[in-house]
């Protein structure tokens, strides 16, 4: 008997050690030296045997055999399913419909393939089925030419494609539809995130109509959100939304109220916001038309207000600014001009006759020359950094410089010529103020500007555009106000100052602007009144007086102060060239410059005042060309005593002799910019802007991502720019400004907010504030779902590109998991272990679970990178499937399983796959908040259930808000920390609520109804 048993045992051992022997039904189909159509165990004709063998045939590209096997399997068990028992305790993932669909797709039988793949997805979703169903649909669409139109995009929110918002984020909602299937929806936004990292709306499977809702971060300034939708056939559509991220409240500019004789106060100023001022109230009373970009404040305050006014404004984005102005400080401002500024009538009657030109004796001329120095600042800009190039401005400037030096006795060193790159905002202002500062009592200054000009359509304020001026930021332009401030300042002692502006909208210099005045005199069209007398027969001889008398009278006028302005046009664009045929004759100068230079060149009078020259030689010649109407006028200031800017010509030249040639190099040398040496007391406004803001928050700890800065800025000459951390927040210069700005605290930890201001004279001031931003405890990384990733890859890659993709995917996947904000990755080292088959993965998972528990992690992120060689593709290749389980370490509860699949193993696509799987994980494990419904001691019922997409096994935090941090200046909350009261675990899920088991509970009697909670 023993011998019998021993023989039996040996026989058994012989079988056991004889190695794997394939089933007799495993008929090996060879291809490329490999055997297909085999099963791992005996083939018993069961459905799982057919499925396994069919899969093997498909791997070898034996489509028909694979199809036959899959159909046999379906004949026995026709439902795709994961984790199906075969025999005993053996499980497989059984996808006969899906694999049959793929085999049919490979055979070009697309309608059948679609049918099978849809049947698979009807019972269980898999990324592989999604992938191939899309491919089959796409092939069918191309084969049958079903796609005719590109996809349509309908945005339901925001309602308009151009909106203004002060929010940090914007939810873009809409629906993409197509006559076939929508395959991809991408949302790019031009913000801090680069355009190459768009949001991909999660689309597992293409659909004819897909809704989307994505939250897009907004930055201050212009934001462009571009929604791109692509259909299966490759057609795409784009829709763009432009959002003006406006986090700055309206600028309030208001001078202290001026007391009037009747005891009431006059309040002057304006409210300005680029997005429009929605509301404006003064002492609670609404004024002004809402919606305008700027609303003027001209209000009479009752004596009962005591000269105090609370001004509040809200812009269209919802930002608010509030300020208090007080007439108590008015004693310093008694000189403030409260009455409306007077404009000179445009008819010549108001212009004194003594202002017109006459001739003087030579002696007087000599005396005048010796007593006065002539200075000039000549600016010409062709080459703009951000504006269209001009053709003639530099030539005009140089020609004027030449005429002045050769004909009118201007010394070269007394002319500053700024062209192109030299004519920056800063240099122009410095040269201008420097030149003005150097003027002595009898000196004259001519300022000439040829370049672009701009007009503020709401305020009618004009600007000169310096070479470095931006297209749409007025703070980079030179305001008429600044020019006027310089030239009309009482400290400027010069006798006669003339500004000639040859630029678009240059006539605005002659119009009333805030806080300044001009007297405009535009010659009427036909000669009449004084002009008819003056111009009469077109010659001074017609005056019937001696020329010397006229020169004498003109020189008398020249000894009286004047502040005059000539503009090449009115409030309209002007021509850079001479229109029509004349352009051929003299293409190098603008229309205005042509006649200005011509007038100066052809002038034969020894002494001529600018108004005479303008009226007789310039105005009509230009007006006759049509369209452009030059203007002349005076700056309304005490510094103007109705004098005249006078040109005195060399006697020889006046007698008809040619002017001596100037050395070209000397002329060129004058173009160099020389920074003026300013005397004491200059610049005119030496004080930098004064900045006041809610400094009480300096050094505070806050729990919010943005803080409201309430900034007041004052400056005598006007505030040109205000910026916070380099971002300009002032669009509209002014003297007394009140600004509200939501400043982003971009990082956790210390944030520096630097407020920088500059006035129109270039004086700068700077203030800094430091805020320590903390994250609420419930949002700290340490309280996120602590997880250990464990990513397995295949034993060996099917293809080299699959191997490299797998390496890239591992690293990128880990990075994405770390950065996605849902996990506290406590050990990002991944196992290099190989993965032989998915079935055996349970062993690796056991080891991974042990490792995760040892690291005290709440969860294990168990991932598998499954690559497989895909035969039958046109170019051959491999596929990559990323399969991730999130498993609770304590209980082994699997919270979610997600996968993605693709056969494009390019690095970019592998990254997309990693992004996709992380998006799926975040969707499956939502970070949402809720409230306690009831606390039974052992179980806490919360108001989140299956409908909230939470999962059994998820952890949550019970918390309450701490004491808020208050801004001592504004009284606004700067956020509050949270107090964690305990943690819990979702134990039982119901549709609308769930039972949780609390743990790590603080010593409190119990959670109260309404207690807040958030998923970890």
């Amino acid at each position, binding site marked *: 008997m023993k011998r019998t048993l021993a023989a039996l045992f040996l026989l058994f051992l012989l079988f056991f050690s004889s190695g794997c022997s394939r089933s007799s039904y495993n008929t090996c189909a060879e291809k490329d030296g490999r055997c297909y159509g085999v099963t791992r165990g005996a083939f018993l004709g069961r459905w799982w045997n057919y499925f396994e063998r069919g899969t093997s045939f498909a791997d070898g590209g034996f489509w028909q055999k694979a199809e036959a096997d899959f159909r046999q399997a379906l004949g026995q068990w026709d439902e795709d399913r994961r984790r199906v028992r075969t025999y005993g*305790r053996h499980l497989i993932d059984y996808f006969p419909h899906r694999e049959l669909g793929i085999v049919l797709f490979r055979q070009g039988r697309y309608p059948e393939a679609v049918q099978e793949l849809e049947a698979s997805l009807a019972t269980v979703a898999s990324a592989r089925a999604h992938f191939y169903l899309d491919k089959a649909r796409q092939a069918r669409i191309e084969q049958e030419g079903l796609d005719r139109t590109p996809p349509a995009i309908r945005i339901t929110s925001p309602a308009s494609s151009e909106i203004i918002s002060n929010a940090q984020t914007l939810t873009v909602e809409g629906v993409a539809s197509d006559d076939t299937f929508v395959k991809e929806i991408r949302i790019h936004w031009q913000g801090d995130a680069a355009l190459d990292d768009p949001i991909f709306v999660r689309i597992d499977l293409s659909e004819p109509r897909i809704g989307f809702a994505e939250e897009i971060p907004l930055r201050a300034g212009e934001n462009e959100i571009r929604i791109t939708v692509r259909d299966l056939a490759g057609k795409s559509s784009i829709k763009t939304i432009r959002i003006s991220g406006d986090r700055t409240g309206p600028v309030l500019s208001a001078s202290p109220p001026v007391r009037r004789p009747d005891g009431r106060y006059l309040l002057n100023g304006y409210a300005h916001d680029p997005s429009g001022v929605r509301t404006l109230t003064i002492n609670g009373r609404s004024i002004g038309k809402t919606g305008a970009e700027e609303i003027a404040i001209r209000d009479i305050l009752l004596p009962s207000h005591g000269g105090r006014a609370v001004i509040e404004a809200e812009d269209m984005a919802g930002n608010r600014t509030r300020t208090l102005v007080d007439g108590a400080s008015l004693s310093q401002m008694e000189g403030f001009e409260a009455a409306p500024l007077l404009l000179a009538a445009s008819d010549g009657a108001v212009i004194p006759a003594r202002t017109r030109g006459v001739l003087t004796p030579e002696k007087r001329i000599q005396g005048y020359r010796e007593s006065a120095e002539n200075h000039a600042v000549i600016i010409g800009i062709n080459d703009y950094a951000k504006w269209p190039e001009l053709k003639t401005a530099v030539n005009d400037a140089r020609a004027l410089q030449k005429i002045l030096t050769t004909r009118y006795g201007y010394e070269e060193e007394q002319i500053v010529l700024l062209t192109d790159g030299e004519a920056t905002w800063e240099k122009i202002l410095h040269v201008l103020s420097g030149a003005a500062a150097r003027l002595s009592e009898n000196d004259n200054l001519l300022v000439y500007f040829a370049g672009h000009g701009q007009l503020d359509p709401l305020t009618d304020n004009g600007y000169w555009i310096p070479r470095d001026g931006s297209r749409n930021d007025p703070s980079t332009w030179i305001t008429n106000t600044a020019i006027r401030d310089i030239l009309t300042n009482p400290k400027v002692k010069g006798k006669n100052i003339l500004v000639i502006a040859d630029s678009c909208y240059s006539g605005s210099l002659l119009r009333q602007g805030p806080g300044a005045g001009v007297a405009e005199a535009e010659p009427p069209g036909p000669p009449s009144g004084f002009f008819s007398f003056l111009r009469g027969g077109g010659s001074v001889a017609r005056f019937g007086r001696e020329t010397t008398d006229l020169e004498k009278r003109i020189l008398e006028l020249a000894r009286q102060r004047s502040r005059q302005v000539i503009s090449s046009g009115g409030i309209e664009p002007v021509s850079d060239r001479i229109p029509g045929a004349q352009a051929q004759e003299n293409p190098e100068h603008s229309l205005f410059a042509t006649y200005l230079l011509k007038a100066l060149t052809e002038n034969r009078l020894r002494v001529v005042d600018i108004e005479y020259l303008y009226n007789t030689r310039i105005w009509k010649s230009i007006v006759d060309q049509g369209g452009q109407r030059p203007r002349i006028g005076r700056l309304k200031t005490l510094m103007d005593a109705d004098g005249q800017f006078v040109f005195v010509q060399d006697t020889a030249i006046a007698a008809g002799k040619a002017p001596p040639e100037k050395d070209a190099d000397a002329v060129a040398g004058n173009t160099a910019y020389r920074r003026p040496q300013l005397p004491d007391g200059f610049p005119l406004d030496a004080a930098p802007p004064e900045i006041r803001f809610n400094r009480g928050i300096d050094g505070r700890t806050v729990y919010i991502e943005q803080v409201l800065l309430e900034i007041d800025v004052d400056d005598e000459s006007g505030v040109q720019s205000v910026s916070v951390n380099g971002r300009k927040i002032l669009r509209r210069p002014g003297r007394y400004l009140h600004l509200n700005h939501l400043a982003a605290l971009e990082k956790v930890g210390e944030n520096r907010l630097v407020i920088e201001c500059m006035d129109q004279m270039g004086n700068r001031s700077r203030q800094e504030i430091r805020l320590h931003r903390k994250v609420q405890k419930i949002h700290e990384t340490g309280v996120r779902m602590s997880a250990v990733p464990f990513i397995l890859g295949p034993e060996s890659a099917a293809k080299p590109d699959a191997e490299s993709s797998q390496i890239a995917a591992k690293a990128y996947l880990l990075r994405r998991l770390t950065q996605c904000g849902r996990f506290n990755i406590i050990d990002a080292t991944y196992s290099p272990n190989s993965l032989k088959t998915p079935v055996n993965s349970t062993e690796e998972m056991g080891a991974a679970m042990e490792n995760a528990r040892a690291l005290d992690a709440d969860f294990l992120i168990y991932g598998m990178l499954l690559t497989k060689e895909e035969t039958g593709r046109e170019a051959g290749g491999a596929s990559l499937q990323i399969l991730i389980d999130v498993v609770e370490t304590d209980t082994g509860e699997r919270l979610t399983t997600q996968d993605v699949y693709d056969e494009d193993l390019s690095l970019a696509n592998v990254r997309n796959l990693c992004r996709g799987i992380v998006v799926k994980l975040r969707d499956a494990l939502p970070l949402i908040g809720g409230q306690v419904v009831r606390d039974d001691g052992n179980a806490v019922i919360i108001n989140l259930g299956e409908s909230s997409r939470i999962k059994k096994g998820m952890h949550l935090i019970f918390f309450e808000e701490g004491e808020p941090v208050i801004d001592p200046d504004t009284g606004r909350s700067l956020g509050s920390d949270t107090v964690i009261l305990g943690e819990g675990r979702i134990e039982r899920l119901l549709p609308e609520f769930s039972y949780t088991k609390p743990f790590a509970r603080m010593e409190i009697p119990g959670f109260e109804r309404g207690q807040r909670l958030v998923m970890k």
Partner: protein
Amino acid sequence: MRYPKIKSRWGAGLLFWFMLTAIHPISLCLGADLQRIEIPSSFNPVGSGARALGMSGAFIAVADDATAASWNPGGLIQLQMPEISVVYDGFHRTEANRFVRSPAASGDESVTRGRINYLSGAYPFSLLGKDMIVSLNYQRLYDFTRKWDFPLVTDEKGLFLEQRVDYKQEGDLSAVGMAWSIQATSALSFGVTLNLWDDDLSPNGWKSVTVQQGSGRDAGDAFNVQSIIYDRYSFKGMNANIGMLWIVDRKLTVGAVLKTPFEADLSHTRRGAVSVQYPGAPEFSYAASENSSADETLKMPLSFGIGAAYRFFHNLTLSLDLYRTEWDDFVRVDAHGSKWSPITGEALSDADIDPTHQIRMGMEYLWITRQRQIIPLCAGFFYDPAPAPGSPDDIFGFSLGSGIGYGIFHFDVAYQYRFGEDMGEYMMEAAGFSQNLKEHTLYASMVVHF
């Protein structure tokens, strides 16, 4: 007053009685037949494995794991990959004995025991174009554990005897088997297990020890009596289990198994000693001893069963088994060629034993978690009658089972409860004997898939 004659007659009678009837306590009680074989466990051992027994042993048509050889070797072919298994069981059996005519002897007798129940390894392969599988198995089928300790009072014809009886029996019958199964068609497979019952290979024997101590009065004279009897049986035989599995469709399978009858060699060894002391009449005191051995034959009966399993879902299976065992062919042949019924101890011709029919019904539900863990839930009930004269004694039972499967490891536990009432009357009919049975058994098994 003395009665030497009587003493002499009863003294010799006592010696004889002790020497010949001390095979087992029931015999002690009534001087019943010596040819009985006590099998306290089920008379109808089926297969092994906590999973199968959690389904109450309705496993003929399932038989799809490494324990299949013990249930239906025809089902072994279902194993596509090698598997091994080990099964451990532990039981607690209580026999509530009732002696109508000797109430002092009534009471609960219980035993508790645990040991390896089953070991197996199965390996599938292909040979000559056929899929087949071999399996090596060890299975313990019968358990002889019994322990009785009771007082016994005899008062008959001037002889009064009050004694304490201490009886212990233990041992097993087990088989080492080599199974082989072949796929005949895609739907039909066959298998056979060759079982070796050999005490030299695996436990196949049992032994009992009976100690009696007492005192009494013989015709008015006091006496003391003491005896010890040791019996040892060794069992050797070979039989085959032949099985078939028919996969009717994707849900229904039908199986059948036949366990062949066989003749086993039964080697019986006895050692015994007895002494009777009359303190008041030493001349009547005496002592005797015995050493003997005998080779006998035990004919084991034919048994066959049929089962069906229906898979409602991939993870829910219901199964039903029916068994018939020809207990009327269960025969003990002594060294002289005389045939006895091991059940009643009577001459075979006098025994009125009928075949028994078992009914076993069970279900298995697999809860498959998303992490691919398998948590089975098994349950079932059964009717497992014990052969008895006239009609079988009814024994019923139910079982519950669960476990966890993770990766290649599958651990199962099952609890089984057997119970019967008013059984065994035939054993000591004159004493008004009957017993109730309560048996709790816990099975634990581990199956490893490769």
